[in-house]
């Protein structure tokens, strides 16, 4: 892509690294999740958005309904065989740069349900950045994962690798 080659040709000088830090800081502190609440983990995700835990202070206040307006896909809950194509479609609709947090045991590995009906881990169809174990994980676990993701985004600078 043109922008990446331009940036690579400029090299790592004081201008690009400072700009990279600034952009990374901006991007990291305003990660907007797309609502993809499927099952029980979705309720804990809603708890994370409420006043007790408050994901808004990390910049993720705006949980957009439309994937085209969001950066982060929090797959919270079990993904069944019927839902898998829908998940992939929603992921494809998100513009770059985008990240995926796989929340909970069912999204990460299939969880308690090792059977015909569930996808044994969403990393079979979308690339995952952070996995959160738990059934369901505490709201604070989701915040922890978000913080890990933010560190990663800030470290990536101008051109992020999704």
């Amino acid at each position: 892509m043109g922008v990446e080659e331009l940036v690579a040709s400029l090299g790592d000088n004081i201008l690009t690294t400072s700009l990279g830090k600034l952009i990374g800081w901006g991007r990291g502190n305003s990660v907007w999740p797309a609502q993809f609440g499927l099952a029980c983990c979705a309720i804990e995700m809603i708890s994370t958005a409420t006043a007790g835990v408050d994901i808004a202070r990390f910049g993720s206040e705006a949980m957009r309904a439309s994937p085209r307006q969001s950066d982060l896909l929090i797959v919270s809950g079990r993904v069944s065989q019927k839902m898998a194509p829908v998940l992939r479609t929603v992921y494809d609709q998100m513009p770059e740069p985008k990240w995926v947090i796989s929340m909970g045991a069912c999204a990460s590995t299939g969880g308690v349900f090792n059977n015909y009906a569930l996808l044994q881990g969403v990393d079979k169809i979308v690339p995952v950045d952070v996995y959160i174990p738990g059934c369901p994980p505490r709201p604070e676990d989701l915040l922890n994962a978000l913080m890990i993701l933010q560190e990663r985004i800030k470290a990536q600078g101008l051109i992020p690798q999704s």
Partner: protein
Amino acid sequence: MIAEGAGGIPPLLTEIVIDRGVSAGDHWITVPAERIHDALLSLKDEGYRLLVFLSCVDHLADSSRDFPARFEIIYQLRDLDKPADIRVRAFVGGESPRIDSVHDLFPPANWDERETYDLFGIVFTGHPDLSRILMPDDWVGHPLRRDYPVGGEPVEFSEEHEMWQTAPEDA
């Protein structure tokens, strides 16, 4: 509770019922699969107007009791006024098991029969829209049959399991 001969079982039903009993406090009757519509109509007229649920049990390789056929379709009916429950059983078997649909008597049976068709392969004749409801439309097989495998993946344990006990270097 349905009482024998005390006016509890309607006359049409007494000639259809093949077997009856009580299992852990629940009253049940067995009727032939061809007469299921008449039996449920009879019970509905008697006051059992709510179909609580409809489902199927697969008795493949079950040596605990004798069963007339492989699939047992169960209908749990309830009389809200008494209140009393009764369970009606019908046995079907063979390569493609079929039984009459009762959606015209009990509307909740509409989705229950679709689910039983989807998961067990029982065809309900007369159902307005017998299609898969829980599995994807192009799924092959009927998952809840006993000869269908549970599926899933074998759980692998990493040989480097001890190394995972410490926190990874970069989060």
